[in-house]
């Protein structure tokens, strides 16, 4: 390769990256110093890699994850670590998990994984644990205590029903609107584990919980629901600052319950409607949430995305990266004690695409 061609490729590549990735890493300053340090981590979730047959996977979902990984690698400075928020596979198949992990291996940095129901219900987490790691764990980083929960468990009686096959059980849980589904929960054993884990943490240490299900009760028909939400919230109540980051819902949601801030992350695969779009059941979507723009299905990646999260003084600032659309930023406003969208929280700032019905 001659010098000219090499130089051309170098500058052309850089130029393409600069123009294709219009994100600047913004350091949000709220003023005041705290014991915890500022840092950033990336969050990619709900890839739903779906196997068709042989070597074929649904191209649409593959592209979503590939794009998120590519863009996340362009973050400058490099984030401290990445999270994967659950539902790497669509039907928990080895092929899907392997293909998803192959794409995720492109991420430059340490990746922690949260399990989703689509990953779990085929083999009850066996392959996940062998290839990825434990289903629940905690770690400390720069003054923050992080806990990852397996929050997509359900009643033992449902898990161990007389299913025709493990795939029957997986399909039953995979179907979001299954009238014969079963609500998510962490379960008593995990609650005991969580209580023990948090006992060692001082009340002034900010706690961040990673979960697939919302640790709230938002909409039961689609399992936007954690059955033992109140019990988990009670364990987080004694802390000065607590944040829950969850996947599963494939849409922008955020909430404040007492001292706990809740943030949903988007899916790289596809968006889900807001619960109010189903006219036959009542929705408890947090009133605080400013909806994401309605998805235009003619743009494959619309209403999908990934996020990077600033941690400042133990509080979380969510930066949603939306291909084909304007990015959204939701940060904790200490003056009002709640997370707020920096552009649209005021009712007068809302725009028509945020109207869902």
């Amino acid at each position, binding site marked *: 390769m001659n010098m000219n061609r090499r130089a051309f490729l170098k500058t052309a590549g850089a130029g393409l990256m600069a123009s294709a990735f219009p994100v600047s890493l913004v350091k949000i300053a709220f003023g005041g110093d705290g014991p915890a340090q500022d840092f950033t981590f990336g969050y990619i979730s709900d890839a739903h890699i*779906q*196997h068709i047959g042989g070597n074929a996977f649904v191209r649409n979902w593959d592209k979503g994850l590939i794009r998120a990984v590519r863009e996340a690698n362009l973050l400058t400075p490099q984030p401290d670590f990445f999270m994967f928020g659950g539902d790497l596979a669509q039907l928990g198949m080895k092929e899907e998990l392997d293909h998803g992990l192959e794409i995720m291996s492109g991420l430059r940095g340490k990746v922690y994984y949260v399990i989703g129901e689509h990953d779990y219900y085929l083999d009850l987490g066996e392959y996940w644990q062998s290839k990825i790691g434990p289903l629940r764990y905690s770690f400390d980083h720069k003054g923050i205590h992080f806990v990852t929960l397996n929050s997509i468990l359900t009643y033992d009686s449902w898990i161990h029903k007389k299913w025709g096959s493990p795939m029957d059980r997986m399909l039953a849980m995979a*179907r*979001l609107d299954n009238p014969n589904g079963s609500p998510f929960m962490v379960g008593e054993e995990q609650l005991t584990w969580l209580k023990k884990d948090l006992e060692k943490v001082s009340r002034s240490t900010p706690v961040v919980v990673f979960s697939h299900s919302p640790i709230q009760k938002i909409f039961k028909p689609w399992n936007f629901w954690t059955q033992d939400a109140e019990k988990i919230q009670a364990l987080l109540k004694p802390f000065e600052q607590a944040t829950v980051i969850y996947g599963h819902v494939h849409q922008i949601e955020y909430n404040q319950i007492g001292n706990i801030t809740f943030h949903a992350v988007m899916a790289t695969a596809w968006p889900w*409607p807001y619960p109010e779009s*189903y*006219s*036959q059941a009542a929705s408890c979507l947090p009133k605080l949430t400013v909806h994401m723009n309605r998805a235009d299905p003619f743009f494959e990646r619309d209403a999908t995305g990934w996020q990077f999260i600033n941690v400042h003084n133990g509080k979380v600032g969510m930066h949603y990266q939306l291909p084909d659309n304007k990015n959204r930023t939701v940060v904790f406003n200490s003056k009002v004690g709640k997370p707020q969208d920096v552009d649209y929280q005021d009712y007068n700032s809302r725009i028509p695409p945020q109207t869902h019905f």
Partner: protein
Amino acid sequence: MRKSRKVFGVSFVVLMVSVLVAISFSIQAGEFTQEDLKRWDKEFMTVVMKGEKLFHSALGKNKVSCDQCHPNAANTHPETYPKFQQQIGRVVALFEMVNWCIQNPLEGDPLPPEDPKMTALLSYMTYERRGVPLAPGKH
């Protein structure tokens, strides 16, 4: 004389057949019973359930099903059709949008509008949206 007798004969037969037909049905047009209503509703709900099954199955070549993006057919907005479908650039009926989805995200072949499968899909989608006022043309 012979021709008119033939005509009279044919008309008489037609008249007698119609009377017999009317008698055999033993109802008059416009009358239906509670039993009829139950029976017709059952027919409709059978098609709705067929539609529910189709909506939750792979209609194309890539195993993707409608409910993956539209749980309970939410966000399909049947009450707003026909409407100017901005992305297609003209006014369309709901079945055209269903076919767009089958062809694109589901990578399948479109269904003719009168296909029983299309009728079933539309029945299910509309049933899940029952009670919502019509709003044709709404974006």
